[in-house]
């Protein structure tokens, strides 16, 4: 278990102090795939670097199974770093070493006998799906393959925690998918705790079970992914969950009627053509302004932003109709009501 207690980090720069982290409190349980998401500059990298003490927190503590990492000697910290390993956005492979040598690198650091280290490295290359790349140099690999080698390397010392700092940000969506799938599989097979730092919503939705939203160095929301995403409370979370609405680039209201947000919390409703059946059953032709459906764990969920044309009457009927559909939550979008849209 990893606990962050009142963690703060202040950088002193020429332009004055920068508070990268403000009193962060988090608990990551064993076996979690814990997402930490935030906009650029929110302090995500600083946070993850504090977890393995690459960055010393200015205040507060990091507890690994109750052990205060800040109190450890340099030598002890080096040992902890074999239990808490890391993968990076830029992969950070040794470019002058073969893939096999790269995976063996952490083992060489602890003077593992050569034969043993090599056997372990080959086994790991197998795990990440690159058994034939042992003697190839990283420059000859694609980004996704390089990240796989980096994952194999990070697993070499059998760590209990894997930190991923924007590990898929340099990859295309399809490769991202496969890397995330690999991480999930490793989490399942070994029970390793994973902390995923990202600015991409989709990454969290894809593999995380818990998530914390970081804004200006502070945690503004935290909880189960399905909870946080289906009912975002903090403005920062909404901006991340519904970027099209926050940016204003998304669908625009026609200005007539009331906007509703529908939140789907079960796999069946997604397949059910709710809007079509509402049109037939109540005669209300809702205007779909935006929709996004995703899979979280085994559960499908999603949201839809619709506009109910007409007045309070239609709105009441629509609300009643939707509220009767199981696993769907409906919210009246106050900030997108007709009056505001008229002004726009």
């Amino acid at each position, binding site marked *: 278990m990893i606990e962050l207690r009142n963690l703060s980090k202040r950088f002193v720069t020429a332009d004055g102090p920068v508070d990268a982290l403000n009193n962060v409190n988090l608990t990551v349980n064993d076996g979690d795939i814990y997402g930490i998401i935030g906009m650029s500059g929110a302090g995500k990298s600083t946070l993850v670097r504090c977890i393995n003490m690459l960055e010393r927190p200015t205040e507060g503590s990091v507890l690994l199974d109750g052990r205060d990492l800040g109190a450890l000697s340099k030598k002890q910290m080096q040992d902890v*770093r074999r239990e808490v390993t*890391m993968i990076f956005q830029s992969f*950070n492979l040794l470019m002058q070493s073969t893939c096999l040598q790269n995976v063996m690198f952490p083992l060489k650091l*602890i003077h593992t006998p050569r034969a043993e280290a090599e056997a372990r490295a080959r086994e790991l290359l197998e795990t990440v799906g690159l058994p034939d790349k042992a003697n190839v140099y990283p*420059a000859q690999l694609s980004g996704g393959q390089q990240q796989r080698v980096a994952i194999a390397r990070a697993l070499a010392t059998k760590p209990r925690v894997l930190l991923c700092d924007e590990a898929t940000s340099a990859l295309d969506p399809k490769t991202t998918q496969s890397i995330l799938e690999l991480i999930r599989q490793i989490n399942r097979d070994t029970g390793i705790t994973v902390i995923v730092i990202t600015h991409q919503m989709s990454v969290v939705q894809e593999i995380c079970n818990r998530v914390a939203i970081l804004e200006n160095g502070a945690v503004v929301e935290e909880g189960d992914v399905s909870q946080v995403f289906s009912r975002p409370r903090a403005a920062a979370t909404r901006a991340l969950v519904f970027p099209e609405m926050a940016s204003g680039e998304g669908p625009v209201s026609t200005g007539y009627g009331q906007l509703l947000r529908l939140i789907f919390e079960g796999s069946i409703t997604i397949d059910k053509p709710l809007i079509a059946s509402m049109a037939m059953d109540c005669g209300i032709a809702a205007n779909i302004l935006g929709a996004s459906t995703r899979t979280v764990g085994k559960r499908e969920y999603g949201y839809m932003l619709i506009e109910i044309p007409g007045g309070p009457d239609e709105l009441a009927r629509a609300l009643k109709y939707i509220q009767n559909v199981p696993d769907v939550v409906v919210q009246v979008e106050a900030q997108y009501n007709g009056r505001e849209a008229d002004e726009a």
Partner: protein
Amino acid sequence: MSQFAKAFEPDKLQEAWHVFLTEFPQGLWETVYVTLLATLFAILLGLPLGILLVTGDEKGIRPLPKPLMKVVNVIINFLRSVPFLILMVMVIPLTRAIVGTSIGSVASIVPLVVAAFPFVARLVESSLRELDPNIIEMAQSMGSSTAQIIFRVMLPESVPSLVTNFTLAITTILGYTAMSGAMGGGGLGKIAINYGYSRYKYAVLYLAVIVLVLLVQVFQSVGTRLAARLDKRIKK
């Protein structure tokens, strides 16, 4: 001008050819071994110093006290700014202490090393600074000690760049040997000065220059090829 033209008359050329056959092999050999030995010692001193400049830096992996780094930097800059000719004279006592004499090929190695090691230190520094800081961070995140970062990450990752820079060092030192040869050392520099400057035998001088230029070419192309061959970032 007429004197210059006279230097290339058939009998002069014949004489030059004679010098080429009798004295150049020995001169070439002296130049090569002085260059190689001086480079070797310059690297032995300059490599650790260059590593220290990078790792001991304020933002390095093992920061050293600022005043110490300041002193090291000042000494390096001082040695680098003294003209080689003057440096040679300055280190005569040191040369005598080490070699026993300040004359001859072997003795000329001492001033060459003194002049070249700060240069090599700076070259090593620049090679190591080219390294992606993320790689160092990776090594730290895996629990590497300072020595492990230096010997398992910084140096191996910088090999192609170091080879390129050592090639630069060797060709520069080769240029210096010609100068030290003229000032009591041996090798092609001595031959060039003896015949060309002292006895107006320009044909010999030019022959010596040609051989030196060829030597630089050889060192340079070997170094360039070696660096390229060692660099695993180049897709093959």
